[in-house]
């Protein structure tokens, strides 16, 4: 059986950093869907595919990432052989240009690749929410005989921050471009490559290590066979606070939840000893996701409530995301808003955005 290891880049930036997405923490550590961080999905997909050696190329502000993943215990990655390896990444990765796979970052971690004694590497960013069995993609890669298999999905209407695969007249891979239009083969920032092949490419590109791997590859497509794998399940790309809000709200649909949360491929995350959510007498909650450790006395509609929030009597939360440890005092109203962690909304306050201009209240103090 082929040995596969994972490599996740967490040190790139997006086109539209905001107070919420990227402003205060790397994308990998962005809290999502009540009790997760973005990186949980990529990490869990890899672990569920049987990978036991995963490298994380770290951003400069790595604290929230390390705080979350620790030694990988919650993903079963605290192992004697293999495990989770935080790896050095260049300071700003690929700033604002859309690339996620800086050659320099692979080059700096050749020791990781060499010591992994692996046959294949699954390389991924961490801006996409999806749940899938990556073994199938690795199998397809091996069966194709290609050097690299790039994973794509059909882009929906608002994918301007998602990179797309460009194909030539014959339908062959011709490169990666910035931004996707509806129907494009959008790049999931996920590819499979033979470990030896990756090392060989790093040798070729030593002098252009400031480039993204796919920019460098453009010139050599006659020598490197790049194939694509079309992923057909649900994918939620999150590159901006607008996308974050829209995708989160979309996931209030149980049919989509079922595509992310399955029995066979659990999404693992850091364990917290929170108690079940408590609905006090008089609470009213509809069409919402509610995490443990939360107490609800008031009204919650079409919202996502993270851990350890308190919604006091007479308070209302509508079309909103409370990240965690948010207290909404009596009679306060929140609508079309993202309230980051550690905030207290004073009694009677009204915080209201619109569905097009979501209000963001940044992270408060611990």
């Amino acid at each position: 059986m082929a040995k596969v290891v994972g490599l996740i880049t967490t040190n790139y930036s997006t086109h539209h950093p905001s107070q919420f997405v990227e402003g205060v923490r790397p994308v990998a550590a962005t809290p999502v869907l009540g009790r997760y961080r973005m990186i949980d999905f990529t990490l869990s997909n890899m672990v569920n595919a049987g990978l036991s050696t995963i490298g994380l190329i770290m951003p400069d502000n790595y604290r929230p990432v390390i705080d979350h993943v620790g030694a990988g215990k919650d993903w079963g990655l605290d192992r004697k052989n293999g495990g989770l390896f935080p790896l050095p990444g260049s300071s700003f990765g690929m700033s604002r240009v859309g690339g996620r796979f800086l050659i320099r970052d692979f080059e700096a971690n050749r020791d990781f690749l060499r010591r992994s004694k692996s046959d294949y590497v699954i390389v991924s960013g961490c801006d996409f929410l999806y749940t899938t069995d990556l073994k199938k993609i690795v199998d397809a890669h091996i069966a194709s005989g290609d050097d690299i298999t790039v994973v794509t999905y059909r882009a929906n209407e608002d994918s301007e921050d998602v990179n797309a695969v460009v194909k030539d007249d014959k339908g062959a891979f011709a490169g990666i471009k910035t931004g996707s239009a509806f129907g494009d083969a959008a790049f999931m920032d996920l590819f499979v490559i033979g470990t030896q092949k990756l090392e060989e490419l790093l040798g070729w590109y030593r002098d252009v290590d400031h480039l993204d791997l796919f920019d460098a590859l453009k010139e050599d497509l006659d020598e490197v066979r790049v194939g694509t794998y079309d992923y057909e399940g649900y994918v939620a790309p999150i590159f901006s606070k607008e996308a974050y809000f829209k995708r989160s709200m979309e996931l209030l649909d149980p049919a989509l939840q079922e595509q992310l949360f399955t029995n066979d491929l659990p999404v693992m995350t850091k364990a917290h000893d929170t108690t079940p959510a408590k609905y006090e007498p008089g609470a009213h909650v509809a069409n919402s996701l509610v995490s443990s450790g939360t107490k609800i006395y008031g009204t919650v509609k079409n919202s996502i409530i993270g851990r350890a929030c308190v919604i006091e009597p007479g308070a209302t939360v509508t079309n909103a995301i409370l990240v965690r440890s948010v207290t909404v005092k009596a009679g306060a109203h929140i609508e079309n808003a993202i309230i980051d962690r550690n905030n207290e909304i004073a009694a009677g306050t009204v915080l209201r955005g619109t569905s097009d201009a979501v209000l963001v209240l940044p992270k408060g103090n611990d």
Partner: protein
Amino acid sequence: MSKKECLAMLLAGGQGSRLKALTSEVAKPAVSFGGKFRIIDFALSNCANSGITTVGVLTQYRPYLLHSYIGSGEAWNLDGRSGGVSILPPFATQSGGAWYEGTADAVTQNLGYIEQNDPDYVLILSGDQLYRMDYNDMLENHKRHNADLTIAVMPVPWEEAPRFGILTTDDDERILKFTEKPAHPDSNLASMGIYIFNADLLVETLKEDAKDPNSEHDFGKNIIPKLLDAGKRLYTYRFEGFWRDVGTIASYHETNMELLGSEPAFDLYDQESPIMSNTVPMPPHYVGPDASIDDCLVDNGCRILGQVRHSVISAGVYVGPHTIVEDSVLLPGARVMEGCRVVNAILGERAVVEKNVDFGSKDADTAVAGNDAVITKGEE
């Protein structure tokens, strides 16, 4: 192995036969409680929160779930470099093997474990009680009295005293008398079955007791009276908080209900001494557009589409549309399909109530469906 100040021996072999269907497949300490816990979480969390890091868990009855649940003790931070959790089922020696016959006998059979850890004190606990206690405070109390044995006690209503082992003390909390289930109690201090022994005395006493053919090898019935007769220094440690030994279906149901309301009798939300548990990762629960949830605990992974009132809803439960659940305890993975009415009931883990079926009633005893049970029309 390095020396430990205090070692805990957690008795978790009990069947809990009066819990009937809930314990037909699992030991009582492994029974689910309060939405996300298992009963043993409370004793293990108390140990961890009290800084007791070496815990022997004595198991016997239907131990599989209990063993896999405890695992390395990691979920309670009890997987340290030294000590940690050791699971101690009955074992065989060259002279044969034997089941644990009584609480004291279970510890006697594991004296080797105690000697290996060489503690100054041994804390004896029961794995099937629900309470929060700082054992360290009890140990300080034990040392202050220069005691040989300290027994945790709690005051109970006088009329209930005849149901308990009752301790009579002097003004300095020294125990003068121990009476098992007295008809005419002269004290209302009930033993909680939580003991701190000086380790040397425990080892010596258990070895002696093992030779006594008339002994039932029980701490309450045999060991405590023997030490009292021998003039040893026995003291009480007074506990005032919430404590339950959920021995019956009725008390199990009632104790779950005590977690509800705006000012619950037992507040699970105390972050100073969290009750830790070994949980399966699940997403936040989803509450449907037409659902209503009033006065409930609801854990992760649930999907609630119907009406739920005054109930404890554990991880991964499904409540279908047009269904009413009231005054009930739904254990992990239970499913109540569409158009049902579940009232005053306990649904075991993964139990299913099929479409349009009613289960339980306000006017009867609490209805119980065991783990994996399927309730169909006609079985209501």
